[in-house]
Every structure is written in C-alpha cells, then in structure tokens.
C-alpha cells in the first residue's frame, strides 16, 4: 500500500493535479474561517461593482488627515475627468457653435475650459447632433464643474436645532487619509455581482457546494456502476444479460437529455443541491458499470479465484476479497473522473436554468447563469463570470490530470 502511494506520487502529472485540488480544498475550508461574511448577503446597492478596496467616505472625513504634497495630484484629477477624447469632443462642439478652430488649443486645459464655460449651452441645438451626443455633452459639462478649483471643499452638517447647515470640516486638495485608519473598509477582490453580493465570498462557497455535488454524484455513480459491473461480470449468465440490457439502454440515451428531463420534472421548488447531485449520480453510472464488468470478466477465471471457489467461499466473499482489490485502482480513477464530470454537469444544468434553486446555496453554474441573465459579458463585467469559469476549469483540469497520472502508474500498457 505504502509502496503504491509512493509510486503514485512519483508521477508528475498526478502531483500537479493533486496540489491544485488540495489548494482549492484548503481555500474552500480556510477562507470561510477568516472571512466570515454570509456568502449570499446582498451588500451593494447596485449591480456589478468593480473589484477594489472600498473605503467609507463618511468615516474618512473623520479620520486623521495627512498632508502630502504630490506633484501630479492636480494633473491626475483633471485626467480622470477629462480624457483626450473629451477634449476633442469639446473642440468639435465649440467649432460647431461658431468658435474659430485656430483659437482652440485642446492641450491648454485652462483655456479650453474657459472657452467651454463661456460658450456651452445645453439648449443650443447643433444641426446633425444626435440625442446621444447631446446627453454626452451635458454629462461632460456636469463633470467639469469645479475641475480647476484649488480651493478647499467645505463639509457641512445640518444643525438639528435650527435646521440650517453648519460648517463641519474643510477638505483641502492635498489631504490624504491612511486606509488602515479608516474604520470601515471592505476589500472586494472580485467586486459584486448582479444581486449585489461579494463575488469572491460567494465563489468560495459555490466551489464548496459544487465540489460536494461532485463528490455525492460521483460516489453514487461509482457505487451503482461498481455494484452492477461486479455482479454482471462475476455472476454472468442471465444476471449479466439483464444488467447489460439496462446498461445498454442507458448508454444510448444521451445523459444530458436525461438530466434535463428529470431536473425539469422535479420542479424548481424541490431542486436542492443534494437532489441535483443525486440526479446526476443516477444518470452517469453507465460507463463505470460496463468497464468494471469487462475487468471482472478477465479476472473471473484467474487461478486464485478458482482456488477460492474450490475452498467453498461465498460469492460475496470472493467478490470482496479476490476481485475488488484487483480493480480498486481502476475504481479510484473512475471516481475521480465521475466527480469532475458531475461538476461540469451541474454547471451545464444551471446555465440552462435547471440547477438548484437560488436562495439557499450558490453553485458555480448558478453564478454563471445569473451573470448571463444580467448581461455581464455584454457590459464587460468580467469579474462576474471569468473567475467562475477559471474555477471550473481548474477543478476539472486538476482531476483529469490526477487521473492521467494514476493511469500511467497503474496501467501496465502505459508504464514506462
């Protein structure tokens, strides 16, 4: 046994796959211990907040203020509001409004803004301008307000007694706060999704659930396949015929069609993660059964089996002690593949809207499904779907890699 394990860990492919999987398992187990937010809590008011560090503005007003005299602060401030395209667009508008082109220098921010301020009027109807362009100029005009100001901003609070605004603080353009000193900071490494949930926290939970679905479904499928394969292969005769009849029947029906039909007929209300796992398990045992049967048939007439028969051991005893150990390595490989197939099957079902229902548990497939419904790909909100796809890829990749590694160790024809 120890020797076998040593052998297995000498396979480079297996080791890589194994470490990816263990790393993912560790993240799935450790992350919730460190980050204890409920994974399905709706935190953002609005959809698809981009990844980043969110600092509470209210708190930062009250935090210790530091003055940093940085050179590019003003330039950065202007650049964030006024891109090169904006400058060209402003020039276009001014030219259309009758300002001579040679008077406009788009690189001189002050002059450009001065001209803009003096001439722009949202009510002016410029021939050939679409409503979309008109809206653009209105937005641009609003965002330019106070852009060149070097004066401090005054914070005011309403006095509860007299109802008037009173000065509560002054913020200078050179004021900074240290993020570590702001009491409320939330890091959202993968932003939020269409429900306004923290994507990373939900992704970790979803990975856990998808792995569970994979384990449950894979175990069920392997158990069924193994039992039927052992019986059919060892007993043979009529039992074999009957079992193979059903196995062949299931082989010709595409699994995904069966899955869709069963999931649909169960109905949304009863589709929990566990139910889906069971459904997947009960529809994907077929090839395990066939393969195990083939292995058993080749084992059935070995000398040690015949000896065992002559010694008067029962069928169950022979199967468990004389046959099963010889195909154990094969069964483990089959299990690994079944798990990865089941995770993919769940994702496939959920994308069709036939996965587990949404309130209680997230799964990888459901996260993709909702990202698609809320058009994340069209809107360029990559964080809502790309990490999920990568997770699915990593899980199935690691398992397939482990499987290939095991195959190299155990399959005599592949042994180097």
């Amino acid at each position, binding site marked *: 046994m120890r020797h076998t394990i040593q052998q297995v860990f000498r396979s480079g492919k297996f080791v890589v796959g194994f470490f990816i999987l263990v790393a993912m398992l560790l993240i799935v187990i450790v992350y919730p211990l460190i980050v204890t937010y409920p994974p399905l809590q*709706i935190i*953002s*008011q*609005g*959809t*698809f907040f981009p990844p980043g560090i969110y600092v509470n503005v209210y708190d930062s007003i009250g935090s210790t203020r530091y003055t940093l005299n940085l050179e590019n602060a003003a330039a950065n401030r202007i650049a964030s509001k006024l891109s090169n*395209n904006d400058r060209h667009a402003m020039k276009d508008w001014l030219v259309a409004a009758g300002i001579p082109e040679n008077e406009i220098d788009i690189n001189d921010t002050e002059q450009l803004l001065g001209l803009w301020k003096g001439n722009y009027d949202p009510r002016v109807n410029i021939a*050939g301008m*679409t*409503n*979309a*362009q008109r*809206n*653009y100029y*209105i*937005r641009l005009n609003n965002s330019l307000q106070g852009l060149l100001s070097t004066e401090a901003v005054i914070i005011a609070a309403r006095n509860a007694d007299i109802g008037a605004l009173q000065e509560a603080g002054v913020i200078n353009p050179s004021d900074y706060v240290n993020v570590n000193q702001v009491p409320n900071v939330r890091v959202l490494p993968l932003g939020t999704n*269409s*429900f*306004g949930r923290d994507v990373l926290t939900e992704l970790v939970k979803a990975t856990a659930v998808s792995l569970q679905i994979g384990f449950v479904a894979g175990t069920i499928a392997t158990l069924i396949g193994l039992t039927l394969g052992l019986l059919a292969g060892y007993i043979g005769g009529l039992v074999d015929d009957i079992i193979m009849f059903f196995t062949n029947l299931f082989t010709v029906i595409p699994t995904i069609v069966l899955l869709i039909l069963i999931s649909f007929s169960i*109905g*949304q*209300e009863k589709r929990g993660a566990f139910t889906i796992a069971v459904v997947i398990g009960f529809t994907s045992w077929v*090839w395990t059964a066939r*393969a195990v049967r083939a292995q058993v048939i080749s084992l059935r007439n070995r000398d040690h089996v015949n000896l065992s028969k002559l010694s008067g051991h029962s069928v169950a005893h022979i199967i468990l002690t004389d046959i099963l150990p010889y195909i154990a390595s094969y069964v483990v*490989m089959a299990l690994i*593949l079944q798990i*990865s*197939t089941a995770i*993919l099957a769940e*994702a*496939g079902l959920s*994308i069709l*809207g036939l996965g587990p*229902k*949404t*309130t209680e548990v997230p799964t990888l497939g459901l996260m*993709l499904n*909702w*990202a*698609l*419904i*809320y*058009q*994340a*790909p*069209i*809107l*360029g909100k990559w964080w809502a*779907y*790309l990490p999920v*796809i990568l997770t*699915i*890829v990593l899980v*199935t*990749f690691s398992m*397939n890699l482990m*499987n*290939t590694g095991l*195959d190299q160790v155990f*399959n005599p024809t592949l042994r180097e």
Partner: protein
Amino acid sequence: MSAHKKWTSLFALVMIVSLALSCAAPTPEIIEKEVVVEKPVVQTVVVEKEVPVEKIVKETVVVEKVVKETVVVEKAEALPRQETLYFNGFQWGPVVCWNPYSANCNNAMAIAQGDNARVTMFETPYLYNMLDGKQYPLLADGDYQWNAARTELTFKLKEAAHWSDGTPLTAEDVAYTWATHVKYNTPTGAANKEYIETIEAVDPQTVVVKAKLDENGRAVNPLIVAAYVSSNYVIQKAWTQKLEERTGGDATELLADTAEDVVYSGPYHKFYTDDTKVIMVRDDNYWGQDPSMWGKLPAPKYLAHMIFKDNAAGSAALARGEVDVSQQFNSNVHLLWLNYGLPISTYLPDAPYHIGASLPTAFYNLKAHGLDQVAVRKAIAIAVDYPTIIANAMTNQSATFEQVPRSLMNPTPGEQAMYDHEAVKDLQWVGNDIEGAKKLLDEAGIVDTDGDGWREYQGKKLSYVATCPNGWSDWQAAIEVVAAAGKKIGIEITTNYPEWAVYQTVVTKSDTPLPPGYEIFMMWSAGTGITQPWGRIRNLLSSEWVGMPSNWNGNWGGYVNPRVDELLKAIPNETDPAKLKEMYTELVKIYLTDVPSFTLMYRPELFHTVNESVWTGFPHQEDGSVPPIPPMNCINGWSIACLYNIRLVSP
C-alpha cells in the same frame, strides 16, 4: 477507459470553450435581413414534374442552390439599412395571423389593441398620449363630443381616410366593427359590451357611440366608453363580410382565421415573416399623407423585428447597432453609453431613464395564516429594502419611493396630481424600516414565544413562501430582497420560482383559495390609459374579481372592502376634479392602511431605448415636440408621430 477519458476531456474542453465563447464574444452576428421570395415557386415546379423519386431529389438539390444564390442577391438589395427601422422586445415567437379580431395572433408589430394601441397596420379613431393624458384624432376629425348627460359620444371621420384597397373609410365600418365584436363575442366585445350599447353611423362621416345605462339612466362607465375610441381598431366592413362568409358565421373559426387578405388603413402592412423575423413595408398610398393628418409618409420604408432568443441576445444586437428601437429590459443600460460610448440613449438622460407607468406589485394571500393581520402585512412591507430592489433588480431603471412616494398612482405628473399628498404622508413608507416593523409586530402581540428566532401568531410560526415565475430575472431578484427583509424582522420567508405555465394557472384561479407556496407573490398592474388611475385601482382592489375562475384582472390576494367598491363605482361618473381628488385620496389611504398588496418598483409601460447609428430624431425629454411625443417605441398610440419626425444620421 482511455476512450472515455478522451470523451470526458473533450466534453470538458467543449464546455469550457463554449462557456468562454458565450461569455467573451458577443453573440454571433445575425445574418442580414434578407427576403426569400423564389422558394415556393420553385418548389411547385418540382412537384409538378412527374419524375422518378431519385430525380426529384437531385433536382431539389439543384433548386436549393438556385434559391441560395437568389438569397444572396436579395440580401444586398432587399432591406436597405437606410430605409429600415429595426425593433426588438415586441416579438418573441413566429407570427400566427393578421386577423385584427383575434387576440391570439402573436403579431406584436401589427396587432395590439388597448390604451396605447399599435397603429402600424390598423388604426383607431383617436391616439392616446400617455404624456399629457389626451386623445388626438387619427381617423377621427377633431375632438369627440359628449352629450349633456354623458351617455352619447359623437365624432366625425376624416374625409381623406381610406382603406388599402382605395375605398373610403366610413362610419359604417366603425359601426360594423363593433357589431361584429358583439356578434362573435370577441375579446374586445366581451370586455366592452357591459358599457357600450351600440355604435351607430349617423351619416358616412359621423359616428355615435351610445353608452349602456344603469338604473338611474346614467352611463354605466363613461370612462370605458371614451377609452374605446382610442383603444380599438376600425376594421373594414366589406372585408369583415367576406371573412364571415368564408367562416360560415362560426365564432371560433372567425377568430382563428389567419386573414392574409385583410384590408387595412394604416401606413404599413405585411412584407415578410418567418420564424426569425417580421418585416412590414410602407404603403405609399397611405391616406395619412393627406394634409388633414400627417401631410407626408412616415420616414422608414420598412419596419423590421428580428426574433431574439432572450434579452441578452437583444441587448447585444442593440449594442451592435442592429436594433434601432429597443422595447426590452437592457440591464444597466447606461453603461452602453457611459463605458462604451455607443450612440444609445433613453427618454430621460439619467436614472430612472424611462417614464414609470406601471407598478409591479407583491400581493399577499390574505387567507394565509397571519397574513390576515394588518400588522404582519404592513411590517413586511415597511421592512423591505426598496432602494436595493430598484438599484439591483431594475439596475436603477425605476424611480425610487423617495422620488415618487407610494400610492396607487404611477409616476406620471397627471396621475400624481390626482391625490392629496399631504393627507397620506404619514402612511407612506420608503422601506428598510426594520425597527418600525418590529415595533408594529410587538405591539400587535406577534412575538417570538418559543425562542427559535421566528415570531408566532396564535402559537404557530410565521413562515411564508415568496414567489414569482421562474426566469423573470428582475422579479426574481426583487423577490430575493423581499425574503431577506423577513429574516430581519423574525418572519421566515423563503423563495420559490415555479414555471410561468404553473404560476399563472394558480394565481389567476380566484374561485378557490391559493395553495401553500403562494403567500407572497408578484404580479403586474395596469400602466397608462384614459381610464387610469381608476382602472388600475379597480384591478388592484375591487372585490368583483374575487370568485372568478380565470381572473386576469387583479386583486389576486382576495381583498374585500365594501367602501372601496363603492368608491370605484362612483368615480367613472364623477366629473368634478375636487371630488375626484377626494375619492382617490381616500382610496390611497385605505390601500396604505390595509396593505393588501405593496408596490415593489415602478416600471415603464414600455422600455424605450434607441440606438442612433442610423436614425435620429427619436422622442426624448425636452425634445420640443408639441404635443409631446411619448417614449412608446414609435408605434403605439400618439408615439407613431415619431415615425414622421425621425431622419437619417447621414443621409
């Protein structure tokens, strides 16, 4: 083993690649909007040739090739982009028929009768304008006149109006249309015959609509009579007679007739339809180019509507400029112009982007345990986080309840002026009031007695299911937020999303109590129209719907209040604005006190997002049009005026 492994790896690869593709790349480009013409003719030729089977097959192949080539030629010439206005969001499946008497033609580009009737092919005497609440004459000549007793409504028809076959459109057609609706009990007939006695032609140009009278000799409902003239099409008498003849007077057959030969009066008619598209073409002989109406033809020669798989596909097409006018929910629509700089705009430049018109509402099953208690109903309603619903589920495409305080009115200024805001101020809530909700429940004695964290009423835990149809994504997202509110105030609310087919059967069956699983459920309410807000309030609160075996009107929770019924009966005959305001205010008060249902968000009557890559001049706020053209996709009610205003960006 190895074969299977390969298969699995292949499956994984295909899966991943397809996921990546579906996510990263926009949906594949839709083939240009070609017109297939030759095919049927060619097929006939094949059939007529009596040759051995093999030869037919062979010939067919050749024929196919010819057809394909024809298509390529047609593709380039058939629908010039500069003459075609593309839509999405109306048509989700193939067209069934062109029969204006039927309500089941699934022909959204041509047939939709109602407050904002679709007037591309068939026309109504008047056009409703949701922005100012007025009816503008189309087939009619000038405003209609009520008689002193408000029992008879008279209007004239335009001399210029004529049918597509060139014959004049007369009062006889209007009268005969109504007579046919009644005779065959069409949906229009059934909905109006309690309110309209007859429609008569006084002379070829004059129509009189006589209202049904109640026991006091007053019209049963003058509002519905007035709404009729802008909601229902005028259909040609001669064609109707032809239709009756061929269907032998059988009502079912008459409604099921595909009416490919229908005669129409509107500016567009059928050009081509199949499973993927509907195309209408302009009738250059349209009567409306007469100076008494528009004075010219509408700008686009073709109106085309591709049939998209879902909203996401429709949005992608809009972003690519393959759709000019979009009547669908485009999630985070503002990002299309903010982040991508696309020439796309909505009616309002900023959130809520559209004019809210209807009130998607969560209904309570008033017979469920605990929900018969006002305290429980109100507690849930005030605890719900509406700002999150509006920001997340609607991606801010709805006014907030701070902007438009809740009542029974939609956010249009006309309706908002119809009740006394000050009088109901204390009753209105904006949500997120967890403490208030807890206090309300504590005061009503509905507390957690067994310490499990959930409150009990009469010893039984308060536990509900909140539901809406599966796949209705914005509603589902809203229902999730409702469920979250329950947890905060000690009432267990779980969510469930049945398929629409199941959901609609259960919810509209108002003659039996709702089954478990439907304690809190979402449905819609009426949008804009000449009968509003009365019609909407009637739908939400009237007890006349309770007990109906198939109730598509409203009050699905089973609310009964005699005072409400009384007010609803009195309003249609009331003409004094002050009294009307008083009555509406009382209704709002009752609604906000009893909370038989609660509005979750405001939703536009129709989404109206335009891409100005090809066409421009669509209605938008402060576009200077008089009367204002409503954002109704240029084909509904008065918004059809938009088709005469739009122009090419680069002619």
